[in-house]
Every structure is written in structure tokens, then in C-alpha cells.
């Protein structure tokens, strides 16, 4: 029973607007310039659409049940409130026929809900579009790595996908359990060590979509967000070929100094830059930084990717993201940090 799109869209806007904007005032300082939201009632893909459709159906049924039961309750307590002249109530012990009736009634309603549940569940198992790509989403404590196995590159914190394309996602964790969730595109699937969980999603329109880790995974569970960027097929191809390239050679002298410092310091113990350092996966603990400068966020969305934020992060990640694996480097001079920042931001 799909609801009319216009009605649904209006309702989807009405609920958050009514409660959130009314109460929140004007909270509009988004973490980045790009707009994105984790609002599941504003779906942008076929799965999320079906899921939010189900919500509106359930909401209508639940509201009806609540209103009916509470109305009878309120009527009863007003109509039968004790007054000085109230007669002694009839001592009724029950009525089997009525009770059988109100056992059957909720059974019928719940059967309808169950049928809608199971049909939708099997519908969203099956992708429709013939175009597909595959991405491995790897959950770390606390950031997401995205591997494009067919295109042979890896990135972090953001995942680009072409619109109207089925994105098969292999969910990988070798640490604790995470949960992969992009509310506007799809509900969540857990990322469990030892389990080859898979999911799919599809974006019907272009835009940035907020993703979040939804299973408590330790100290910085709150900062394990990511972005899905849905773009046209040609923009996607452009992005892929850019990501496949080796790291850009820095042109200005400060960045060049940063590059030299990066390859001779502790950075390479945890981070790879394709064409500059080893890419032996077993040694890599932090994100691959080959195209770091093109990303929106640092470290699971804890801060925007700006030179100032990056400098603060390199100096002491623990003040930015308490508990992160990356240690502080108090021995670094301001110049060294500036050089590193210039280099990393040049890696577009």
C-alpha cells in the first residue's frame, strides 16, 4: 500500500519540521559546507523509501489504536467517577464473548502488519537495477575505510557512488562490531568480525548522504560517521580515475618539505600514500592518505578537513578525538606541522 509521494513528502517534512525546527530554533551550523542529513523520513533511495512508507502505515495504525483505547479509558473514568450519589457498581466478572472478540481484533490488525512487514522485507532483499558496483566497507575503531576492489583503490570517510546504480557492500571488521547505516538510503546492517555480511543500497538522486556507525563500538562511537556522495555516472568515473592515480607531487616548497618529512618520520608506520610509501596492507593502521586533500572530513567526521583542524589533529589527536589510536606528537615544531599540513592538503 504505497502512499502517494506528495503526501508522504509533505508528511516527511512536516514531522521533523514541526517538532525539530519549532523546538530547536535555528540549528543550521552544519559540520561542513555540504548539506546532508540522517533523516530517514526524507528517503533518497528505493530501500529507504519502502522503509519510510512502512513507518507511515504503522504510525497511522498505532495512532488509531492509541486514540481509541485512551478515549474509552478517559470516557470511563469521567462517566464512572465516584460521586456521593454513585450507585454500587454491578459486580461483572467478565464476558467471554467480548473477550474472544477483542482477542481476534488485534490479531487481525497485527496480521495485516505482519504481511506488510514480510512482503517488504523480501522486496528489499532484491535489487532492481542492472547496473552494479561493489564496495568493501571496513569498520575500524573509529573510522570507515572504503575499498573499491574492482577499481583497485582505497579511501576513507567518504564513499562515492553513481546514482541509479546498485551498490553491493561487503561489510568487514577485524576488531569489534560496527553497524553500517545511511538513513536516507538504507537501514543498517551490522559489521561483525568473522561474518561476511553484505548489503546493498541505491541512490535515486545526487547529493551527500550522512552515514553513521550505529552499534556501540567503544570510546569514540559518537565520531564514526561517513559520507556517501551520489553523483552522475560521468562524475563518478572522473572521481574513480582521480582516486586511482598515485599521489600528486607537491609543487610549492613548504609542501615539498612536508612530503620529505612525512616519508622520514613516524607517519609511515601507520599511513600509506600510494606512490610514496609502502602500501603493504598488514602494516597500515590509519587511513590511506593518497587523496586526503580531496576529502570533506578528518577521522570519522570529528572535524572538517581544514588546514587549521588538521594542524590541531596532528599536534594532539587526543584533544580532538579522545581515545583515537593516533598518538600525540608534542615534539613536532610549528614549522614541521605546517609543512605536513601543506603536503597533506595538496593531495587532491
Amino acid at each position, binding site marked *: 500500500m504505497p502512499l502517494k509521494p506528495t503526501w508522504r513528502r509533505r508528511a516527511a517534512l512536516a514531522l521533523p519540521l514541526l517538532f525539530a525546527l519549532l523546538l530547536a530554533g535555528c540549528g543550521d551550523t552544519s559540520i561542513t559546507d555540504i548539506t546532508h542529513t540522517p533523516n530517514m523520513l526524507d528517503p533518497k533511495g528505493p530501500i529507504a523509501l519502502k522503509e519510510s512508507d512502512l513507518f507511515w502505515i*504503522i504510525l497511522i495504525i498505532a495512532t488509531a489504536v492509541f486514540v481509541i483505547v485512551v478515549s474509552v479509558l478517559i470516557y470511563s473514568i469521567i462517566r464512572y467517577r465516584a460521586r456521593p450519589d454513585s450507585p454500587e457498581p454491578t459486580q461483572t466478572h467478565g464476558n467471554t464473548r467480548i473477550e474472544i472478540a477483542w482477542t481476534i481484533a*488485534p490479531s487481525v490488525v497485527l496480521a495485516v502488519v505482519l504481511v506488510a512487514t514480510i512482503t517488504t522485507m523480501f522486496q528489499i532483499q532484491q535489487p532492481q537495477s542492472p547496473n552494479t558496483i561493489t564496495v568493501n566497507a571496513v569498520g575500524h575503531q573509529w573510522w570507515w575505510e572504503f575499498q573499491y576492489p574492482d577499481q583497485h583503490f582505497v579511501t576513507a570517510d567518504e564513499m562515492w557512488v553513481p546514482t541509479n546504480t546498485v551498490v553491493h557492500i561487503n561489510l568487514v571488521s577485524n576488531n569489534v562490531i560496527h553497524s553500517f547505516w545511511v538513513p536516507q538510503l538504507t537501514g543498517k546492517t551490522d559489521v561483525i568480525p568473522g561474518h561476511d*555480511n553484505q548489503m546493498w543500497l541505491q541512490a535515486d538522486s545526487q547529493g551527500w548522504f550522512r552515514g553513521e556507525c550505529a552499534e556501540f563500538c567503544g570510546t569514540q562511537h559518537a565520531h564514526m560517521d561517513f559520507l556517501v556522495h551520489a553523483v552522475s555516472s560521468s562524475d563518478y568515473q572522473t572521481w574513480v580515475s582521480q582516486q586511482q592515480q598515485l599521489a600528486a607531487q607537491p609543487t610549492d616548497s613548504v609542501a615539498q618539505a612536508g612530503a620529505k618529512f612525512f616519508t622520514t618520520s613516524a607517519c609511515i608506520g601507520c599511513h600509506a600514500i600510494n606512490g610514496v610509501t609502502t602500501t603493504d596492507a598488514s602494516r597500515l593502521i590509519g587511513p590511506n592518505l593518497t587523496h586526503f586533500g580531496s576529502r570533506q572530513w578528518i577521522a570519522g567526521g570529528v572535524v572538517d578537513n581544514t588546514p587549521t583542524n588538521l594542524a590541531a589533529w596532528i599536534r594532539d589527536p587526543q584533544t580532538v578525538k579522545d581515545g583515537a589510536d593516533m598518538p600525540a606528537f608534542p615534539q613536532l615544531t610549528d614549522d614541521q606541522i605546517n609543512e605536513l599540513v601543506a603536503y597533506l592538503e595538496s593531495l587532491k
Partner: protein
Amino acid sequence: MAVGSVATRSRSARRSWTQSAIGSWVTTTDHKKIGVMYIYTAFFFFLFAGVLALLIRTQLATANNTFLSPEAYDQVFTMHATIMIFLFMMPIWTGFGNYLIPLMIGARDMAFPRLNALGYWLFLVGGIILSLSFVFNSAPNAGWFSYAPLTEATPTCLTQAIGTAQQAAQAAASAAAAGGQGCFSPGANPDFWIVGLNILGIASLTGAINFVVTILRMRAPGMTINRMPLFTWMTMVTSFLLIFALPSLTVATFLLLFDRHLGTHFYQASAGGDPLLWQHLFWSFGHPEVYILILPAFGMISEILPVFSGKPIFGYTFVAWSGVAIGFLSFTVWAHHMFAVGLPPLAQAFFASSTTLIAIPTAVKIFNWVATVYGGKVRFTASMLFGLGFVSMFLIGGLNGVALAVVPFDYQVTDTYFVVSHIHYVLFGGSVMALMAGIYFWFPKMSGRMLNERLGQLQFWLFMIGLNAAFFPMHILGLLGMPRRQYTYPTGFGWEGLNLLSTIGAFTIALGVLVFLINFFWTMTKQRTMPGDPWHAFTLEWATSSPPPPENFVTVPVVRSRRPNYDLTHPDAPDWKMEH
């Protein structure tokens, strides 16, 4: 009684310390005194975990708040739930059951009085161990269901000394950085949780066995199973749930303990174990546990609504047997906590069906309660207000619970604030509201004093407004994409105002609790002036003095209907003449 026999054996001619003010409580095996100790201790833990809730809500009042560090926040939210569930809700039901069941069925005491005392003292020890974790800055910090492998460690990576949270986090970080697999909680935090919970588990088990035997073997003449008060019924069902559900928790936690300290790999995927084993074992306990927390509330409401409506419960048999049905079904629904873990679709369909099925007996109960009020003579005492509040608020918890059984929608809202809203409508709107109804109802029975009704009504409204302000916005927060268990959140998604409202609601509830404490302490300073039965109540516990004598009844009562006290007060038209 046992107290007397201990005193007789004492060789001292002077007054034995077992008769002193403190000694008489420490050595007691009287079910009423043990019940009162359970209730006081559990209520203390309610206040403790309530303060933790206020810390959570203070941290989340504004975006990007730094009131609590992430390490502290994780301990606070974990312990809020752990204490509320294991140290408040479970033991306070045991306390009420202890006090009321023997009186309700016309027994002199529980079947095993000394086992009963042991249960209380184990509960206290378990509570102290769990609380001590804060002193060592090692409070459990992985959530109340403490999923492996986040709680995992290996014997070699455990921090020898109990260190600060920062030290533990650093040790975990360095273990991860060194490529050490399977060491995510090297501190003692999960160990406190495991040890505390297992001691509490033994305490609960002793209580459950005691209730079952007492209810099946100790009933007064004429108190057939079919005439038992519904609170007795629900306590019996709850006790069976405990007996069959707790072993699963014991197994789960012991395997975790073995992993951490003996180097086994039950939940370590890298060594062939399976993290999902934990979830199956835990939720096999965890879902019956939810009913362990709510069934006694159903029982209480089924006692209180009839009294203040001046009518018997509508459909006793349906209400009793729907409780039994819920008990059985509660063992078939555990994986609805796990819809997002990647179960096969057919398994998900099964658990969606069983979860939908369990909603039917629950709906039947709600209809029966409403029908009990309908056509009655409704007295708006504080107890009745809380009872009516329970019916309407628990209804919301039932409806948003059905929403969570809608699997595709659950993919979206599981692990968000929508779920937090659901559990609080069930456990606060449900269990706590019923508990307050029970406290106002049975306080005169236990103390011989009447709590102030006006303060009770004030508390009721503070609770109703507070709980809806605190928990209703959480539905919307979940729909707007706010995951649970985040120590902070960003601006820009419409979350700020809703969180602030929720915080205001939490403090409104706290104000209600304060009103209750004032009411309690003020009432306790007054003289005992209460008649035996201030409510025109129906059940047997009101057919003796308030508070009852140590032997409960001067003569063994003979029961002829479901409402023995009604029969006594209506000799012209007793139930047993009306029944066929």
C-alpha cells in the same frame, strides 16, 4: 519463628543483639522484613541510577557538550541501565513479592525463609560489587548487553592493576596498534559486570525457586490456583521465566570470563569463535528478562484497578492466562534484538511473527484493564492515577514495540533513540508507574501509615509530564537519525531542541521523585493511625492488621472466592454466593 528460636538458644541472659534494632533486621527470616529490606535497598539503587540518568541528560542537553568525557559517559550509561534493571527493578519486584505473596495466599511465611534471607544478602553483595567499580574507575562501560568482542581481552593483555579509564583506553589502543587481536577491554570493567551479575543471578534464582514453591505448596485452605490474586499469578510466571532464562546469562558471562582470563576463544572470530554466539545467548536471557521486569507490573495493576473501580477484574481467566502465554512466547522472540546482524530472511520472518504474536495477549490485557474501569465507581486516589497512567503509557510502549517488530522499519530505527524511547515507555511508563501505584496502595499495609494523597497526585503529574517530555522526543530523535550511546552529537540535524526538551523532562521526573521522598519521610514521622484496610480492598492481605503481626494471620484464613476480603466486608452478597 526463627528470630525467636535464635534468641532462645542465646546463652546470654541479657537482651540478645538479634532483638536489637539492627540485629533484628540482619538476622531476620521474616518474609515481611526481608521484603522491606529488598524494597529499601532497591529504591536506593533507583535513586543512584536516577542520578546517573541526570548525568546523561545533562551531557546531552546541548550539542558538543563536554560535561562528561567519553570514558565517563560510557560508564554512566552502562551503569544506569545495569543498575536500573538488575539492582532496582528486579529486586524491588522480589521485595513486593516477598512481602505480599504469603499474605495474599494466606501463608505464614515463604517456603524457605533462610534461603529467602540468603537471597537478599547476595543481592546486597552483588550490588556493592557493581557499585565499587566506580571507586576503582573501572565501572562497566560496554552497555548493559555488553556485546563481545568489545568486552573481550586475552589473559596476556589484561592490565594488572586497576588503572584509570585513560590508562585502560591507552592499553587498548596500543594493543590494537601492535596488531594484537581480541583485546578491546583490558581493564577490569567487564569483570566487575560479570561477577556482579552472576551473584545477582544466584540471588534472583533463590527468590524465584522460593516463590514457585511457596505459591504451589503454601496456599491457605480454599485458595485454589484459580482464586489466586493476579499479582501472585504474575509473580509465579516471572519466577519460572527467571529459572529458565538466567542459565543462559550465566553461560554467556562465564564464557566471556573464560575468554578473558583463561585464553579461550568463544567470541573471538580471529581464533574461530563467534561474536554472534554472545548475542544469541544474551538475548535468550535478555528478552524473557524484559518480561521479568513488566509482568509483576501487570499483576499489580490487575490488583489496583479493580479496587479503585469497585469491581472485580474483567476476565480474570484471560488476564491470568495471557500472562502465562506471554511467559511462554517470551522465549521465542530473542532475535528481534538482532534483525540487523544479517540473519537469513526466513529466520527474520519467524522472529517478526513471534514478536507480533506476543503483542496479542498484551493487547488483551490492556482491553481487560479498560473494561475493569468501565462501569465502575472510580476513585481517583494517587495509586489509581498511577495505575491509569500505567495503562496509557504502557500502551505507547506496546505500540512502538510493535513498530520495532516491523523488520524493514527496524533496520532503520534499531540502535537509535527510537529504541531508547520504546524501552523507557515500557520500563518507566510501564514498570515504574505500576510500581508507584503499588507503593501508594500497599504502603499503608506495610507501615500502618497513609502517604499524603495530595503530594501523591502532585508526584503523579510531575511523572506524567516529565516522562512524556523526556521520552516522547526520543521517537523523533531516532527518526531524525540520532544513534543511541553517543556521548555527544553535532548541531544541524534538528536534534538540539529535542534533546533539551528530553533533559527538562528528566529533571521534571527527578522533581517528582523528590516530592515522593518528602512525602515518605514526612509520613514516617507520623503516628500509626491507619485502619486495617483504608481502600475497601479485595484480597487476603487486607484481612489482617496493618502492618500484619509476625505470624500474618491470627487464625488460618479459609478462602471461598477470588476476593476474600470483599466477602468479609460484604457478608450479604459475597462473591462465593454469586459464583456458580
